[in-house]
C-alpha cells in the first residue's frame, strides 16, 4: 500500500514522514547519505576519484596538458572543469548537447574553484610567457540520484589532491622542452572547500543532501560552500523565500559537514599509498 501512495501522492507520502522528523530512507532531516570515496582509481589520468553519495555516483578524472599562456597573463595556467550528465545516469537526460543543468553545474565548478582559490593559477606555470599547465577536469555522473553538486565538488577536491604532474623543464638557451616522466610533483592545493546542499520542502522544511525524488518535490534549494571557518559561497537560485534563521541554520550545518568531508578526504588520502 505504501508504495502506491508514494507513486500516486508523493507529497502526502513525504509529509507523513516529515511530520515525525524522519525521511522515507530512515535518515534524519539533517543527515547525509553514507559517503564513499575512492581516490586514484583511474591510472591513466593525472588525478582521479570516485564519489558515492548514497546511490549518486560521480567520477572525476584530471588530465594535464601543456599550452601557451594567455596573452597578458604569462604566468597563469588554466583549469577547465566540465560536468557531464549523460543518458547513462538518468532517463531525464537525452543524448545530444549538454542540458542546461549540466552547463550550470559546470559553471558552478568554475566559480567554486575561482572563489576558493584552492589552486593558485600561478602554480601551474612552467616557464613564464612560454609554457603553462592546463588541467582538464572531467566530472562524469554515472548514477543520478540527487545532490550531484555536492558529489561533484567532493570528487573534484579529492581528485585535485591526488593529482601529480610530471616535471617539465625548459632549456633557457635552446628553448627545448624536456619532460621527466619518472619524476612527479604533486599539485599544491591550498585549501579544501566543501559544499552542502539543502532543499526546501513545502516552503518550510529544510532537508540536507536530497535524493532525486526529494529534488523533484522541492520548492527551492540552497548550497553553502565552506572553507575552514570562512564561507566561500551562499547560493540560493530562487525558490521559496527563506527567513534569515533558516539560512543561518543551513550555514551552521554546512560548517559541520565541511569538517566531516575534509576529514574523509584526508583519511582516504592517508590510506592509499602513492
Amino acid at each position, binding site marked *: 500500500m505504501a508504495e502506491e501512495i508514494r507513486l500516486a501522492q508523493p507529497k502526502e507520502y513525504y509529509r507523513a514522514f516529515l511530520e515525525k522528523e524522519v525521511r522515507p530512507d530512515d535518515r534524519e532531516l539533517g543527515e547525509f547519505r553514507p559517503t564513499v570515496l575512492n581516490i586514484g582509481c583511474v591510472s591513466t589520468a593525472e588525478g582521479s576519484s570516485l564519489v558515492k553519495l548514497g546511490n549518486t555516483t560521480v567520477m572525476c578524472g584530471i588530465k594535464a596538458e601543456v599550452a601557451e599562456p594567455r596573452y597578458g597573463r604569462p604566468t597563469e595556467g588554466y583549469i577547465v572543469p566540465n560536468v557531464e550528465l549523460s543518458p547513462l545516469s538518468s532517463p531525464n537526460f537525452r543524448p545530444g548537447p549538454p542540458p542546461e543543468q549540466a552547463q550550470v553545474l559546470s559553471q558552478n565548478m568554475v566559480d567554486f574553484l575561482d572563489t*576558493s582559490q584552492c589552486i593558485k593559477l600561478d602554480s601551474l606555470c612552467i616557464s613564464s610567457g612560454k609554457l603553462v599547465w592546463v588541467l582538464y577536469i572531467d566530472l562524469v555522473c554515472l548514477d543520478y540520484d540527487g545532490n550531484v553538486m555536492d558529489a561533484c565538488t567532493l570528487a573534484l577536491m579529492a581528485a585535485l589532491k591526488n593529482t601529480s604532474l610530471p616535471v617539465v623543464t625548459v632549456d633557457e638557451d635552446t628553448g627545448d622542452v624536456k619532460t621527466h616522466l619518472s619524476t612527479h610533483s604533486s599539485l599544491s592545493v591550498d585549501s579544501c572547500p566543501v559544499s552542502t546542499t539543502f532543499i526546501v520542502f513545502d516552503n518550510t522544511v529544510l532537508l540536507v543532501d536530497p535524493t532525486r525524488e526529494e529534488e523533484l518535490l522541492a520548492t527551492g534549494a540552497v548550497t553553502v560552500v565552506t572553507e575552514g571557518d*570562512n*564561507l566561500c559561497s551562499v*547560493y*540560493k537560485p*530562487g525558490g521559496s523565500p527563506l*527567513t*534569515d534563521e533558516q*539560512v543561518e541554520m543551513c550555514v551552521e550545518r554546512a560548517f559541520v559537514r565541511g569538517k566531516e568531508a575534509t576529514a574523509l578526504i584526508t583519511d582516504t588520502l592517508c590510506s592509499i599509498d602513492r
Partner: protein
Amino acid sequence: MASFIVLTEEQQRLQREAPPEAVLRCLTSELGCLTRQDGSASLSQGDTTVTAVAYGPAEVRMARERIDRATVEVVYKPKVGLPRPVDRKKENIIRNTLESAIMGSAHPRSAISVIIQETEDLGSNLACCINAACLALLDAAVGLNFMVAAVASAVMEDGKIVTDPEKKVEEKAVAVMTFVFESVDHKLVSVLTYGKFTQEQYKVCRDLCRQTAQSVFAFYRESLEKKLLKTV
C-alpha cells in the same frame, strides 16, 4: 506610446539621508519603452542598463507544458557574442527567482516569457536584470505573489561594505554578494555570492541589502504611478 523617464525625488532624498553604505546609484526606468510586447521596461542603475520584455500568458511548447502551473521562460542576451555557461547560470537564477514571484497556478498550461537584453554592464548586472524583469512583469500586468528587488553589495579589502557597486569596485572587492528579497515579508528569495567572506560579513551585507531593497520597492511604485497617471 506610454513612455517616460522617472528620476525620483524621493529616491534622491533617501540616498542623501541613508548612511553612506546603504546607497543605490541613481535609478532610472522607462516602462513600455517598446510597443509590440505585453510589457517592457528599460532600467538603469547608475551606468548599468538593461532592457527586459515580458510576454504572457501565451501558448507553451508541448514539451514544456505543465498541467498545474505556468511555465516561466527566461532568455538572457549578453551584449556581444553567444550566451556562454556564465549567462546560462544567470538565466537559471533569474528564472527560478521569477518562478517563485509569478502566480503560476493562475495560468496553467501556458508560458510566461521574459527576455532580457544586456545594454551596458558597469557593475551589479545581475541585480539590475532581476529588477528590470520585475518591472517588465509589472508592466505586462502578470499576476505576482510578491515583487522582487535585487541589490548587490561588495566587501572591500579593508572590510568596508559598498552597496550597488560599480564594475571597478567589484573588480577590487574581496567578495561580491547579490541578494533578492520579496516585498511581503522581506524574506530572502535568492542569493549569489562570489569571493571569500565571514559569517559576520554575510549578515551585515544581507541586512544592508534588505534595507536598500526598500528603496527599490518604492521606486517600482513610483514608476508605475507615473505610468498610470500618464495613460489616464
